Structures are given as structure tokens and as C-alpha cells.
């Protein structure tokens, strides 16, 4: 009796682990493929059957991205960093006071919350075309400012939503105490609340950074020659007619994956709440 029970339990454990292993293989394989492709020699890119475990590696494709002149990835990399960083700073700066007032005074009540969520649901393509026309009149197409503003449409609501959840856990006594001590509310917010909430703010900031970094549709439509990001470089390289651009395309994808990868490792703990919009009530 006991041995049979143990046997079925073992068997079940084996099945579960096998299932998880298959899951891991599927989850990791595309990542593995991109990374190895970026280090493979060009001849291994187009072989039948494909080379799963390349024996020799090369840094050629990365070299082409940086050292040589045909594909210069530096401006693209710079644009990605500048845009994501500006967008992050801008969104966080306007979202902190908004989230503070919305959660502390419940300004606008449920309606404000509904509006924020709906803002997040809008398909970006709806706004892209009219924005393109407006930007044309204001000469904002192909500028950092135009793109940063466009990113804030979707980042702003996300940041406010996340920050509101954090502010709701913040003890109001601390703010009240400093108000009694004679500081203005803004001073209390900047000097007392923000330092204490720094870890949460950093997490929200990183989410904003990533949303900017991963954007495709805005830079595709509102961007131009001077504001091309890494994502655009990937697309251009992969759509290029020559087989020679296959390796650099993979290397660009790896470059593009790196920052999100590192940042997500830091944010593991906040991933679920962040991805589910700070825990929509369910």
C-alpha cells in the first residue's frame, strides 16, 4: 500500500518535472537562437539543417555594428537611451504629484480611476494618425520632444496607476506631521515622501523606461531619420535584401534585449503587480 502510494507520487513528480522541462525548452529556445545567431558565422545562418550547436563563434556581427561604417548602430543606441530616459524622467516627474493627490484626496473618485484605465486600453494606432497630422503642423515629427510626449500617453496612466497603489500604503501621519511642523505640502512631498518611497518610484521609473525602450509604433510613425531607435534598426536590417545583414540583425536584437533583461532581473519581485497594473481589483 505505502510503496504503491510512493510509486504513484514519484511518477507524478517525474511527469510534472518533464512537463516543466519542455516548457523551459520552449520558453528559452528563441532567446538561445537569437543569441547564438548573433555569434555564428554567416555560413551557419543558412545551412540545412540549421546549426543548433555552432562549434565556432565570431564577434564579426557586433564588430560590424560598431567598428565599421556600413551599419553604424551607435546613433540608434543613443536615440533609444535618450528617448527612454527622457520619457522616464518626464513621466515620473508629472505622475508623482498626480498620484499623490489622487490617492490622498481621492480627487475625481472612481471616475478618475476609470479614465486612467481606459487611457491604457486605447489602441495606440487610433492616436497615431491624428498625432502625425498635428505634429506636422507643429514641426514635432522626428523630434525627441514629440516622441516623449507621445510615450507619456500610455506611460502616464501606467505610472499613476502603479504609484497610486504605493501611495495608498504610505502612512499619512508622516505627511501630517511635517505639515504641522510648518512645511508646505509640496515640500513635504519632495523632502519626506519621495525619499521614503524611493524604491517604489525606482520600480515605476524602470517600467516607464522599458515601455519607451520597447516602443515600435510611435517611432515608426512619428519618428524619422534623427530619432530612429534600436527597434527600427532591427526591422531595417532584417528587411534588408542582403543575407549579410542577418547576423547584424541578430546582434542588434541582443543589444535591444540586454537593458530589459538586466532591469527585469532587478524587478523580479515587482513583476506581477507591475504587469497586472498594480493589482487591478479582481
Amino acid at each position, binding site marked *: 500500500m505505502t510503496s504503491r502510494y510512493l510509486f504513484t507520487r514519484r511518477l507524478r513528480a517525474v511527469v510534472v518535472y518533464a512537463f516543466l522541462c519542455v516548457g523551459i525548452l520552449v520558453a528559452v529556445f528563441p532567446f538561445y537562437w537569437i543569441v547564438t545567431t548573433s555569434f555564428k558565422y554567416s555560413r551557419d545562418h543558412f545551412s540545412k*539543417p540549421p546549426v543548433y550547436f555552432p562549434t565556432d563563434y565570431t564577434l564579426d556581427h557586433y564588430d560590424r555594428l560598431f567598428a565599421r561604417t556600413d551599419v553604424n548602430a551607435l546613433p540608434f543606441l543613443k536615440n533609444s537611451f535618450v528617448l527612454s530616459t527622457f520619457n522616464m524622467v518626464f513621466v515620473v516627474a508629472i505622475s508623482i504629484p498626480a498620484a499623490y493627490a489622487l490617492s490622498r484626496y481621492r480627487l475625481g473618485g472612481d471616475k478618475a480611476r476609470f479614465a486612467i484605465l481606459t487611457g491604457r486600453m486605447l489602441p495606440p494606432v487610433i492616436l497615431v494618425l491624428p498625432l502625425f497630422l498635428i505634429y506636422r503642423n507643429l514641426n514635432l515629427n522626428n523630434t525627441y520632444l514629440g516622441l516623449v510626449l507621445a510615450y507619456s500617453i500610455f506611460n502616464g496612466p501606467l505610472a499613476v496607476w502603479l504609484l497610486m497603489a504605493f501611495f495608498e500604503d504610505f502612512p499619512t501621519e508622516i505627511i501630517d506631521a511635517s505639515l504641522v511642523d510648518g512645511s508646505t505640502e509640496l515640500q513635504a512631498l519632495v523632502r519626506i515622501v519621495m525619499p521614503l518611497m524611493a524604491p517604489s518610484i525606482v520600480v515605476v521609473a524602470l517600467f516607464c523606461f522599458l515601455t519607451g525602450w520597447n516602443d*515600435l509604433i510611435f517611432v515608426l510613425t512619428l519618428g524619422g531619420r534623427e530619432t530612429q531607435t534600436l527597434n527600427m534598426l532591427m*526591422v531595417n536590417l532584417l528587411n534588408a535584401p542582403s543575407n549579410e545583414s542577418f547576423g547584424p540583425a541578430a546582434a542588434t536584437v541582443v543589444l535591444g534585449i540586454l537593458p530589459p533583461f538586466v532591469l527585469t532581473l532587478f524587478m523580479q519581485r515587482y513583476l506581477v503587480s507591475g*504587469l497586472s497594473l498594480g493589482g487591478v481589483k479582481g
Partner: protein
Amino acid sequence: MAQLTVPREKTGWQRVLPRHWTRYLYPAPLMIILAALIIFPIAYAIRYSFYDYYLTRGIMRFIGLKNYADAFRDEVFRQAAWVNIRIIVVSLIAEFTLGLLLALACYSIKRGRAVIVALLTVPIMISTSATGMAFRMIMLPEYGPLNYIIGKLLGRDWVAIDWFGDRNWAIWSLVIASVWHAMPFVMLILLAGLVAINQELYEAAKIDGAGSWRLFRDISLPLLKGPLFVAFLLRLIELIKMFDLVYLLTQGGPARVTETMSFYVYYVGLRFFRVGYGVTLSLFLLVLTFALAFALMQITRRREAVA
């Protein structure tokens, strides 16, 4: 530093404005920017929807409601909606079946859970664009590994599936890439839900002689309703908006069979620069999204009222 001050006298503006008026200044910058960037474009869209306006040809002619009439009859838009619906149904079923199974598997194991979860969630760390790029390479008909792997599983060398060029397969390339990208997200939310369930419930049910299927059906599943609903909502929203993967993988082709609504609007407005019609279509999409958001909010509210 703490510091005592005498309460200040009310001066100037303070006498006129309502008490606590400063509170409204805090959200003001964000609200103004959002209003400018959402309401202004929508107003623009409404205005141009009454015009026949080609950006490249510089034609702009008032045509009243013709764009709306056209949009109602537009077969391609209807077909795009149908593509969205098919992708949504298949992806959601696949994501939630696999996500739930993986979450349960992760929950049931004792050793190595942290590492396994970290490996399973690798796709989350990769952007949609990079996902698209990866699948472009993996699904290359002759040189990509996917056709060889499927071939191996079927006991052959290779299968000849043209993932992006075959009208029957192209939509599956979108589904596969999107499920791969989103499934770990569903799994994470469900796993968090499972971990939050009180262990004593299981213990008590086990003492009463419940088998593992009963434990799942009568304890896990009812208590997972919340997380399931949240994940469902968020995935549905993402899939309705679907654009990036279509742009990266199939460009709507072949013969427009994989055009989603978002992609079609982009195509009309920003490829052909048929602006008047493009904004009309985007208004349709807007109304559709709002109706859906509203319906979902109503369901959420009712759920909360019941709970």
C-alpha cells in the same frame, strides 16, 4: 528640520479660491498633457473624418458622411476584425490552458521552483519587437529551426511550411509568437494567485478524503477566479490592439489575410496616406474599444458587488 511657524494670514488669491485649491494643481500637469494628447487628436480625427483627404496628393474635399458609409461597408475592415477575433479566441485558449498547467506544475513542486519560474519567464523580459525578430528567424521556411523540429517530431527531416507566405499558416505564426510571449505572464499571475490560497483549505479537504481533481475543481479554481479574470482582461486588451507582431512578422500578408484592425488603420492612414478614411476607421476602433472597456467595467463592478 522641525520648525514652528505662526499660521499665515489669508492673502490675495487665497480669499477668492476655494479651500484646498492647491490640491488640484498636483494632477494638473499630467491631466493637461493627457487631455492635449488624447482629446485633441480625437477632435482632429473627427474633423478630418468628414473630408476626402490624401496627404500625398494634397487633396482635401468635404464629403460629409461618405467616409462613415464606406467604413460600414468596408469588407477589408470586417475581415480585419475577423482576424482579430480568431487570434483572440485561439491565443486566449492556448495561453490560459498552458499558463494554468504550468502554474499548477510550478506550484506542486518543492525543489527548484525559483529557478524554474525564472527560466519560464524569460519571454517576459524580451520586448515584442525582439520576439517578432526571433520568430522571423526561427520560422524561416528553409533555414529556420522550427520546420526541422516539427519534422523531427513527425519522424521526417523537414516539413515545408511557409509560415509567412502561406495564407493558411500565416495567422498561426502570429498566434504562436503571441502565445509564446504572453503565456509566462498569465502563468505568473495565476501562480501568484495559487500561492495566496490558504493551505489549510487543502489540508481540511484532504482530511475529508478529497482527491487532487476535487481539490483543484472545488478549491483552486474558484479561488483563482480573480487572478484569472485580471489576466484575461489584460490579455484581451493587448490582443485587440495587436499591431507590432503583425508589422514584424507578416505585414498583414499574404493577400491581407493577417491584417488586424490596428494594422489596417495604420495601412490606410500611414502607408497610403488616405487620411480622411484612416481617421474614420480609427474612430470606429475607438468606439469599439470604449464599448468593450465599458462592458468589462460593468462586469467587474457586478463581480465585486457579488463578492
